Protein backbone atom coordinates (compact mmCIF):
# COMPACT_ATOMS: atom_id res chain seq x y z
CA UNK A 1 0.00 0.00 0.00
CA UNK A 2 1.52 3.36 -1.01
CA UNK A 3 1.92 6.10 1.56
CA UNK A 4 -0.92 8.55 0.88
CA UNK A 5 -0.37 10.90 3.82
CA UNK A 6 -2.98 13.61 4.20
CA UNK A 7 -4.58 12.65 0.86
CA UNK A 8 -5.65 9.20 2.03
CA UNK A 9 -9.37 10.09 2.17
CA UNK A 10 -9.41 11.86 -1.21
CA UNK A 11 -7.52 9.11 -3.05
CA UNK A 12 -9.21 6.08 -1.50
CA UNK A 13 -12.72 7.50 -1.81
CA UNK A 14 -12.04 8.46 -5.45
CA UNK A 15 -11.02 4.90 -6.27
CA UNK A 16 -13.81 3.37 -4.17
CA UNK A 17 -16.59 5.50 -5.66
CA UNK A 18 -15.36 5.20 -9.25
CA UNK A 19 -14.71 1.46 -9.24
CA UNK A 20 -18.01 0.86 -7.39
CA UNK A 21 -20.03 2.89 -9.91
CA UNK A 22 -18.32 1.24 -12.90
CA UNK A 23 -18.93 -2.27 -11.51
CA UNK A 24 -22.59 -1.38 -10.86
CA UNK A 25 -22.98 -0.03 -14.42
CA UNK A 26 -21.44 -3.20 -15.92
CA UNK A 27 -23.60 -5.45 -13.71
CA UNK A 28 -26.83 -3.59 -14.54
CA UNK A 29 -25.99 -3.65 -18.28
CA UNK A 30 -25.23 -7.40 -18.23
CA UNK A 31 -28.31 -8.32 -16.19
CA UNK A 32 -30.62 -6.26 -18.42
CA UNK A 33 -28.99 -7.70 -21.58
CA UNK A 34 -29.51 -11.25 -20.35
CA UNK A 35 -33.11 -10.58 -19.29
CA UNK A 36 -34.01 -8.95 -22.61
CA UNK A 37 -32.41 -11.77 -24.61
CA UNK A 38 -34.43 -14.35 -22.63
CA UNK A 39 -37.74 -12.47 -22.80
CA UNK A 40 -37.44 -11.84 -26.55
CA UNK A 41 -36.63 -15.53 -27.16
CA UNK A 42 -39.74 -16.52 -25.16
CA UNK A 43 -41.99 -14.15 -27.10
CA UNK A 44 -40.59 -15.26 -30.47
CA UNK A 45 -41.10 -18.91 -29.52
CA UNK A 46 -44.66 -18.22 -28.37
CA UNK A 47 -45.50 -16.41 -31.59
CA UNK A 48 -44.04 -19.25 -33.69
CA UNK A 49 -46.20 -21.77 -31.76
CA UNK A 50 -49.29 -19.60 -32.18
CA UNK A 51 -48.55 -19.32 -35.90
Amino acid at each position, binding site marked *: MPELGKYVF*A*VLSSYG*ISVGILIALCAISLIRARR*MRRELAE*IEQRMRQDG
Partner: protein
Amino acid sequence: MASLWEYANPRKFIATSDRVLPWVGALALICLVTGLVWGFFFTPEDYRQGASVKIIYLHVPSALMAINAWLMMLVASLIWIVRRHHVSALAARAAAPVGAVMTIIALATGALWGQPIWGTWWVWDPRLTSFLILLLFYLGYIALWAAIENDDTAADLTSVLCLVGSVFALLSRYAVLFWNQGLHQGASLSLDKEENVADVFYLPLLVCIAGFVLLFVALVLLRTQTEIRARRMRALLARERMG
Protein backbone atom coordinates in the same frame (compact mmCIF):
# COMPACT_ATOMS: atom_id res chain seq x y z
CA MET B 1 -15.30 -4.29 -48.52
CA ALA B 2 -18.44 -4.30 -46.43
CA SER B 3 -20.20 -0.96 -46.25
CA LEU B 4 -20.53 0.69 -42.84
CA TRP B 5 -24.25 0.97 -43.51
CA GLU B 6 -24.61 -2.82 -43.38
CA TYR B 7 -24.47 -2.43 -39.60
CA ALA B 8 -27.65 -0.41 -39.77
CA ASN B 9 -29.30 -3.81 -40.15
CA PRO B 10 -30.10 -4.89 -36.54
CA ARG B 11 -29.38 -8.59 -37.22
CA LYS B 12 -26.02 -7.80 -38.79
CA PHE B 13 -25.19 -5.43 -35.92
CA ILE B 14 -26.02 -8.03 -33.27
CA ALA B 15 -24.11 -10.81 -35.06
CA THR B 16 -20.98 -8.68 -35.50
CA SER B 17 -21.05 -7.12 -32.04
CA ASP B 18 -21.54 -10.59 -30.50
CA ARG B 19 -18.23 -11.64 -32.04
CA VAL B 20 -16.38 -8.45 -31.05
CA LEU B 21 -17.78 -7.92 -27.54
CA PRO B 22 -15.81 -10.57 -25.59
CA TRP B 23 -12.51 -9.27 -27.01
CA VAL B 24 -13.27 -5.63 -26.36
CA GLY B 25 -14.55 -6.42 -22.86
CA ALA B 26 -11.46 -8.49 -22.00
CA LEU B 27 -9.10 -5.82 -23.38
CA ALA B 28 -10.94 -3.13 -21.41
CA LEU B 29 -10.56 -5.14 -18.20
CA ILE B 30 -6.85 -5.78 -18.82
CA CYS B 31 -6.14 -2.10 -19.59
CA LEU B 32 -8.18 -0.84 -16.62
CA VAL B 33 -6.63 -3.21 -14.09
CA THR B 34 -3.11 -2.63 -15.46
CA GLY B 35 -3.48 1.15 -15.64
CA LEU B 36 -5.11 1.59 -12.24
CA VAL B 37 -2.76 -0.79 -10.41
CA TRP B 38 0.25 0.84 -12.12
CA GLY B 39 -1.00 4.32 -11.31
CA PHE B 40 -2.01 3.58 -7.73
CA PHE B 41 0.89 1.41 -6.56
CA PHE B 42 3.85 2.14 -8.80
CA THR B 43 3.93 5.89 -9.49
CA PRO B 44 5.67 8.47 -7.27
CA GLU B 45 4.09 11.48 -5.57
CA ASP B 46 3.90 14.75 -7.47
CA TYR B 47 6.21 17.42 -6.07
CA ARG B 48 3.32 19.89 -5.73
CA GLN B 49 0.17 17.77 -5.35
CA GLY B 50 1.65 14.87 -3.35
CA ALA B 51 -0.17 11.52 -3.46
CA SER B 52 -3.41 13.20 -4.58
CA VAL B 53 -2.02 13.00 -8.14
CA LYS B 54 -3.15 9.34 -8.17
CA ILE B 55 -6.70 10.61 -8.75
CA ILE B 56 -5.61 11.66 -12.26
CA TYR B 57 -5.97 8.01 -13.45
CA LEU B 58 -9.72 8.18 -12.84
CA HIS B 59 -10.48 11.87 -13.29
CA VAL B 60 -8.89 12.52 -16.69
CA PRO B 61 -10.13 9.36 -18.50
CA SER B 62 -13.68 9.75 -17.15
CA ALA B 63 -13.81 13.45 -18.06
CA LEU B 64 -12.51 12.62 -21.54
CA MET B 65 -15.18 9.95 -22.00
CA ALA B 66 -17.93 12.17 -20.59
CA ILE B 67 -17.33 14.62 -23.45
CA ASN B 68 -16.60 12.06 -26.17
CA ALA B 69 -19.64 9.94 -25.28
CA TRP B 70 -21.83 12.97 -26.03
CA LEU B 71 -19.97 13.55 -29.31
CA MET B 72 -20.55 9.90 -30.24
CA MET B 73 -24.27 10.42 -29.43
CA LEU B 74 -24.19 13.53 -31.63
CA VAL B 75 -22.84 11.55 -34.62
CA ALA B 76 -25.39 8.75 -34.04
CA SER B 77 -28.22 11.32 -33.73
CA LEU B 78 -27.17 13.04 -36.96
CA ILE B 79 -27.19 9.65 -38.73
CA TRP B 80 -30.71 9.08 -37.39
CA ILE B 81 -31.88 12.53 -38.53
CA VAL B 82 -30.38 12.18 -42.02
CA ARG B 83 -30.69 8.44 -42.78
CA ARG B 84 -33.34 7.20 -40.30
CA HIS B 85 -31.35 4.13 -39.23
CA HIS B 86 -32.89 2.81 -36.02
CA VAL B 87 -29.65 1.22 -34.83
CA SER B 88 -27.93 4.62 -34.72
CA ALA B 89 -30.74 6.16 -32.63
CA LEU B 90 -30.65 3.16 -30.29
CA ALA B 91 -26.84 3.38 -30.03
CA ALA B 92 -27.19 7.01 -28.92
CA ARG B 93 -29.79 5.94 -26.36
CA ALA B 94 -27.49 3.13 -25.16
CA ALA B 95 -24.52 5.48 -24.76
CA ALA B 96 -26.30 8.09 -22.63
CA PRO B 97 -26.25 6.26 -19.24
CA VAL B 98 -22.60 5.34 -19.80
CA GLY B 99 -21.75 8.98 -20.55
CA ALA B 100 -23.74 10.12 -17.51
CA VAL B 101 -21.78 7.72 -15.27
CA MET B 102 -18.51 9.02 -16.72
CA THR B 103 -19.62 12.59 -15.98
CA ILE B 104 -20.57 11.67 -12.39
CA ILE B 105 -17.16 10.03 -11.87
CA ALA B 106 -15.38 13.09 -13.31
CA LEU B 107 -17.37 15.45 -11.06
CA ALA B 108 -16.99 13.27 -7.93
CA THR B 109 -13.25 12.68 -8.34
CA GLY B 110 -12.80 16.36 -9.24
CA ALA B 111 -14.52 17.42 -6.01
CA LEU B 112 -12.49 14.94 -3.95
CA TRP B 113 -9.29 16.18 -5.60
CA GLY B 114 -10.24 19.84 -5.34
CA GLN B 115 -10.92 19.78 -1.60
CA PRO B 116 -7.30 19.21 -0.44
CA ILE B 117 -5.66 21.08 -3.35
CA TRP B 118 -7.94 24.12 -3.83
CA GLY B 119 -9.46 24.05 -0.35
CA THR B 120 -13.00 23.64 -1.69
CA TRP B 121 -15.19 20.82 -3.02
CA TRP B 122 -16.82 22.98 -5.64
CA VAL B 123 -16.40 26.35 -7.30
CA TRP B 124 -18.42 27.93 -10.13
CA ASP B 125 -15.44 27.71 -12.45
CA PRO B 126 -16.25 27.64 -16.22
CA ARG B 127 -15.09 24.05 -16.74
CA LEU B 128 -16.79 22.67 -13.61
CA THR B 129 -20.01 24.51 -14.35
CA SER B 130 -20.15 23.35 -17.97
CA PHE B 131 -19.57 19.77 -16.76
CA LEU B 132 -22.47 20.07 -14.32
CA ILE B 133 -24.67 21.36 -17.15
CA LEU B 134 -23.48 18.44 -19.31
CA LEU B 135 -24.63 16.04 -16.58
CA LEU B 136 -28.05 17.73 -16.52
CA PHE B 137 -28.24 17.31 -20.32
CA TYR B 138 -27.44 13.59 -19.94
CA LEU B 139 -30.18 13.19 -17.33
CA GLY B 140 -32.65 15.16 -19.47
CA TYR B 141 -31.77 13.07 -22.52
CA ILE B 142 -32.32 9.78 -20.62
CA ALA B 143 -35.60 11.09 -19.14
CA LEU B 144 -36.87 12.21 -22.56
CA TRP B 145 -36.28 8.75 -24.08
CA ALA B 146 -38.13 7.19 -21.13
CA ALA B 147 -41.03 9.64 -21.27
CA ILE B 148 -42.06 9.14 -24.92
CA GLU B 149 -43.75 5.91 -25.91
CA ASN B 150 -43.26 6.11 -29.67
CA ASP B 151 -39.65 5.17 -30.47
CA ASP B 152 -39.37 7.29 -33.62
CA THR B 153 -40.76 10.41 -31.94
CA ALA B 154 -38.43 9.84 -28.99
CA ALA B 155 -35.47 9.46 -31.35
CA ASP B 156 -36.41 12.69 -33.18
CA LEU B 157 -36.77 14.77 -30.01
CA THR B 158 -33.71 13.36 -28.25
CA SER B 159 -31.64 13.98 -31.39
CA VAL B 160 -32.56 17.66 -31.26
CA LEU B 161 -31.69 17.74 -27.53
CA CYS B 162 -28.38 16.08 -28.36
CA LEU B 163 -27.57 18.79 -30.93
CA VAL B 164 -28.26 21.51 -28.35
CA GLY B 165 -26.28 19.69 -25.64
CA SER B 166 -23.27 19.41 -27.93
CA VAL B 167 -22.58 23.08 -27.29
CA PHE B 168 -22.03 22.26 -23.62
CA ALA B 169 -19.98 19.15 -24.41
CA LEU B 170 -17.64 21.36 -26.45
CA LEU B 171 -17.71 24.09 -23.78
CA SER B 172 -16.68 21.48 -21.18
CA ARG B 173 -13.64 20.72 -23.33
CA TYR B 174 -12.65 24.26 -24.25
CA ALA B 175 -13.99 26.31 -21.32
CA VAL B 176 -10.49 26.85 -19.98
CA LEU B 177 -9.40 28.34 -23.31
CA PHE B 178 -12.53 30.49 -23.79
CA TRP B 179 -12.44 32.00 -20.30
CA ASN B 180 -8.95 32.36 -18.95
CA GLN B 181 -10.13 32.28 -15.35
CA GLY B 182 -11.18 29.82 -12.68
CA LEU B 183 -9.31 27.28 -10.59
CA HIS B 184 -9.23 24.38 -13.00
CA GLN B 185 -5.89 23.84 -14.69
CA GLY B 186 -5.41 23.44 -18.45
CA ALA B 187 -5.49 20.14 -20.30
CA SER B 188 -3.38 17.33 -18.77
CA LEU B 189 -2.76 15.83 -22.19
CA SER B 190 -1.59 17.80 -25.18
CA LEU B 191 0.15 17.23 -28.49
CA ASP B 192 2.67 19.77 -27.23
CA LYS B 193 5.09 17.68 -25.14
CA GLU B 194 6.00 20.67 -22.96
CA GLU B 195 2.41 20.91 -21.67
CA ASN B 196 1.99 17.20 -20.92
CA VAL B 197 2.18 15.60 -17.50
CA ALA B 198 5.57 13.98 -16.74
CA ASP B 199 6.30 10.63 -18.42
CA VAL B 200 6.14 8.73 -15.15
CA PHE B 201 2.44 9.71 -14.86
CA TYR B 202 1.77 9.84 -18.61
CA LEU B 203 2.20 6.16 -19.53
CA PRO B 204 -0.14 4.67 -16.90
CA LEU B 205 -2.56 7.48 -17.72
CA LEU B 206 -2.57 6.44 -21.38
CA VAL B 207 -3.29 2.82 -20.37
CA CYS B 208 -6.19 4.00 -18.17
CA ILE B 209 -7.56 6.13 -21.01
CA ALA B 210 -7.40 3.10 -23.33
CA GLY B 211 -9.24 1.09 -20.66
CA PHE B 212 -12.01 3.70 -20.31
CA VAL B 213 -12.41 3.98 -24.11
CA LEU B 214 -12.62 0.20 -24.52
CA LEU B 215 -15.04 -0.10 -21.59
CA PHE B 216 -17.23 2.56 -23.19
CA VAL B 217 -17.19 0.72 -26.54
CA ALA B 218 -17.99 -2.62 -24.88
CA LEU B 219 -20.85 -1.17 -22.83
CA VAL B 220 -22.33 0.71 -25.80
CA LEU B 221 -22.23 -2.44 -27.97
CA LEU B 222 -23.88 -4.51 -25.23
CA ARG B 223 -26.49 -1.88 -24.40
CA THR B 224 -27.26 -1.23 -28.09
CA GLN B 225 -27.96 -4.95 -28.53
CA THR B 226 -30.30 -4.73 -25.53
CA GLU B 227 -32.09 -1.69 -26.97
CA ILE B 228 -32.50 -3.44 -30.35
CA ARG B 229 -34.03 -6.48 -28.60
CA ALA B 230 -36.26 -4.27 -26.42
CA ARG B 231 -37.53 -2.44 -29.52
CA ARG B 232 -38.26 -5.72 -31.32
CA MET B 233 -40.02 -7.03 -28.22
CA ARG B 234 -42.26 -3.94 -28.06
CA ALA B 235 -43.10 -4.36 -31.76
CA LEU B 236 -43.95 -8.07 -31.35
CA LEU B 237 -46.11 -7.43 -28.28
CA ALA B 238 -47.96 -4.66 -30.12
CA ARG B 239 -48.55 -7.01 -33.06
CA GLU B 240 -49.77 -9.73 -30.66
CA ARG B 241 -52.20 -7.31 -28.97
CA MET B 242 -53.68 -6.32 -32.34
CA GLY B 243 -54.50 -9.96 -32.94
